């Protein structure tokens, strides 16, 4: 049976990328952000939990710069697949609030329509569908557009407007996934309203389609069986037989078809023909109502054929089978009442987050036939799905605790390393470095300030130049003294003045490159200080706050949340297990009641046959004896 989530998943997969069939013809779009691609990788494996986590991380750390809107749309779609209807609705509404037009908006409206449609909100669904732009049908959105038409048609069917519904799907291709479902729904509606022949005509339309998938074939079997019963109700027994005959023997619905085929034959008083399918039915699981009915139908046919002895033998065998089955049911009730629920089901993680068919999830114990019957029921499936998801969440919480333990170990190790750094020589070195850089910076700044103020470059002279300038100045002073003593030193004074002037000129020439050099040194010092200060502060903070950089607080917060969720999940698991247990036991008790009813009828029939009268009793006894030898 197709599940709702599987269909949504399939649809999303189709709309996110090309299908396997046409992948050779066209290349899929490559992910523009790695994290978006990783989310797709998980999603295509039906690992919705991981896909959603990846998208949420991307959104939080701003790691989806090129896929912002499409990532949000994808998250909405995956949320829907993962059963987070409320979150999906929130995302789509948010997208619609921020987008005035465009394809993203149409897609958001589509999913909102689908959500409302699935919840049975017909007017809400129609209103959302009407907001989708007519040009929505471009090739990349073809699967969505086909489903839009299907939904629209089904809404019209719900309103009873079959002509408008037909018009809504009239341009769907005959190979469309949705067309067989539409014809089936149409047939159901018509049959339920008493129009058997129109219903059959709808089922015929479905049967005329080329359905290659297992799902399609299964739907065809159901349509054939429904048609068969419709013909039976309309007293067209030959056509009913023909419909039942086309149902595959491997079909999950074959029991009902076999029973119907037998009744169609019986209605034409061909009891010999009726016996074949009914006897075949007797070999099948007694959990099916059709099989139970065959336990009375077979002896009924023998009676009609006048083989009273065979009829009696069959009734007696039926009594034996029914009593044995009643014992099995009683045992199953006891098992389901006491055994841990987790042991009664096989929850395969290999299937990803999709819950597929009964075949994939059958338990491997003696109660399997009872569950195979139950699992076809929607309510049971829902309860089972929820329980499985709770187990999955519980597993995650266990793993989450293990992951957090690793984080704590790493954090503690890092903490110790930093502590050693804070308390050891590294801290001293860092402090010395900081002091030295601060002194250097102060000196450079003073030099720059002095040079800028004087604007002659003398403040930026190096030691050698200053020494030479000192020599020149001292020479001039000496020459000046000698001149006062009437010595002729004019030549020497002129030379010394020239020398001093050359030194000053040279300093002025070097002013610009030297001030640039100082400024460069100032910038480098500043950068080094900027690196050193936070490191020093971190070290100082570690001494005060052992769980540095807020990691400690985050770890503690996650630890608390893990514990809270575990407590909540445990409570919900207990509730879900009880619901499932109650559901199974209630169904088994219904089975028990039905079996008792059949048992009563079989016993009455035996009494009636044995009480045929003294005249016929001897021949009946002989028949029975002959039949049992």
């Amino acid at each position, binding site marked *: 049976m*197709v599940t*709702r989530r599987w269909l949504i998943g399939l649809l999303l*997969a189709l709309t996110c*990328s090309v299908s*396997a069939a046409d*992948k050779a013809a066209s290349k*899929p779009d*490559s*992910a523009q952000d790695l994290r978006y*691609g*990783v989310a*797709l*990788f998980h*999603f*295509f*494996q039906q690992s919705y939990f991981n896909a959603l*986590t990846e998208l*949420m*991380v991307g959104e939080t750390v701003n790691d989806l710069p090129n896929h912002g809107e499409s990532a949000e749309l994808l998250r909405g779609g995956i949320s829907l697949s993962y*059963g*987070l209807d*409320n979150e999906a609705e929130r995302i789509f509404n948010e997208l619609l609030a921020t987008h005035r037009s465009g394809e993203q908006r149409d897609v958001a409206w589509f999913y909102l329509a689908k959500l409302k*449609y699935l*919840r*049975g909100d017909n007017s809400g669904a129609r209103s959302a569908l009407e907001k989708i732009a007519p040009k929505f049908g471009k090739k990349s959105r073809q699967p969505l557009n086909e489903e839009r038409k*299907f*939904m629209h048609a*089904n809404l019209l069917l719900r309103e009873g407007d079959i002509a408008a519904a037909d018009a809504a799907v009239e341009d769907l291709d005959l190979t469309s996934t949705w067309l067989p*479902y539409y014809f089936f729904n149409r047939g159901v509606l018509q*049959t*339920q309203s008493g129009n058997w022949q129109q219903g059959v005509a709808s089922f015929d339309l479905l049967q005329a389609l080329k359905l290659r998938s297992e799902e399609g074939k299964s*739907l065809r079997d159901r349509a054939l*069986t429904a048609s068969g*019963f419709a013909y*039976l*109700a309309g007293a067209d027994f030959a056509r009913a037989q023909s419909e039942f005959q086309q149902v595959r023997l491997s079909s999950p*619905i074959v029991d009902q078809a076999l029973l119907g085929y037998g*009744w169609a034959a019986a209605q034409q008083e061909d009891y010999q023909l009726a016996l074949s399918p009914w006897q075949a039915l007797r070999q099948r699981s007694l959990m099916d109502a*059709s099989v139970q*009915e065959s336990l009375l*139908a077979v002896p*009924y046919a023998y009676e009609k054929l006048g083989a009273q002895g065979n009829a009696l033998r069959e009734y007696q065998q039926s009594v034996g089978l029914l009593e044995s089955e009643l014992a099995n049911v009683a045992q199953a009730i006891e098992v389901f009442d006491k055994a841990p629920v987790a042991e009664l089901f096989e929850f395969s993680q290999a299937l990803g987050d999709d819950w597929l068919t009964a075949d994939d999830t059958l338990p491997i114990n003696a109660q399997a036939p009872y569950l195979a019957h139950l699992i*076809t029921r929607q309510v049971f499936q829902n309860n089972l799905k*929820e329980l499985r*998801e*709770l187990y999955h*969440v519980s597993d995650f*919480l266990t793993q*989450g605790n293990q*992951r*957090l333990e690793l*984080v704590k170990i790493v954090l503690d190790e890092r903490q110790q390393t930093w502590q050693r750094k804070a308390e050891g020589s590294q801290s001293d070195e860092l402090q010395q470095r900081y002091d030295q850089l601060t002194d250097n910076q102060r000196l450079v700044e003073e030099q720059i300030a002095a040079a800028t103020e004087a604007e002659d470059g003398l403040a930026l002279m190096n030691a050698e130049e200053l020494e030479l300038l000192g020599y020149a100045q001292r020479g001039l002073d000496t020459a000046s003294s000698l001149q006062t003593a009437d010595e002729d030193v004019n030549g020497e004074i002129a030379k010394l003045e020239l020398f001093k002037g050359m030194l000053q000129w040279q300093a002025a020439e070097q002013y610009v490159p030297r001030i640039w050099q100082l400024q460069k040194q100032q910038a480098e010092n500043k950068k080094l200080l900027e690196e050193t200060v936070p490191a020093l502060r971190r070290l100082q903070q570690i001494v005060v706050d052992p769980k540095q950089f807020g*990691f400690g607080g*985050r*770890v503690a917060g*996650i630890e608390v*949340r893990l514990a809270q*969720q575990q407590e909540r999940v445990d409570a*919900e698991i207990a*509730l879900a297990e009880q619901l499932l247990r109650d559901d199974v036991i209630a169904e088994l008790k219904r089975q028990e009641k039905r079996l008792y009813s059949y048992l009563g009828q079989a016993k009455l029939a035996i009494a009636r046959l044995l009480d045929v009268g003294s005249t016929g009793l001897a021949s009946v006894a002989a028949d029975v004896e002959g039949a049992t030898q």
Partner: protein
Amino acid sequence: MFTMSTLRLGFVALLLSLMSLPVAAEVDSPQRPLETQVQDIKQQVLSLNRDLFILEEELLFPTNTQVAVFLSMNVGEFFQLDAVKLTLDNKTVTNYLYTERQVDALHRGGVQRLYMGNVKAGDHELVAVFTGRGPEGRDFRRGTTMTFSKDSEARHLELKIVDSTAKQQPQFSVKEW
């Protein structure tokens, strides 16, 4: 005893039971209390996983040492991937065997986070060896090497398997992000 009237009732009951089976995309039951609770729990746990994921990335793979290797496949008509062996600075860091489902996810545009680890700043060598089935189903083994430089930023490398229609061969390359 069975009578015609009970038979007719049986037909109708069976027919109605067929009708009551859910068909694709038909109406679900309205949300039940357990369903609402389960939805809320799943949402809370997703947020929890997100926060734990970010914490792990920041603490275990800080950006100044983080290196991550991804794998993508464009079509893959000429190559059916079986395994990838990843060597970083002469040390095998990953030996990954692919399931059919994973290969399909890659074909459809998914990107696999193949490896995440830590390296020091400086130059490093990455070697990836791909094993699988090449054109015409032949055994195929091909390697690609790249040298990359690690600085204070996280380094992300994408191994790309691309079909070369001209050469009718798969091509392997590395893209630095």
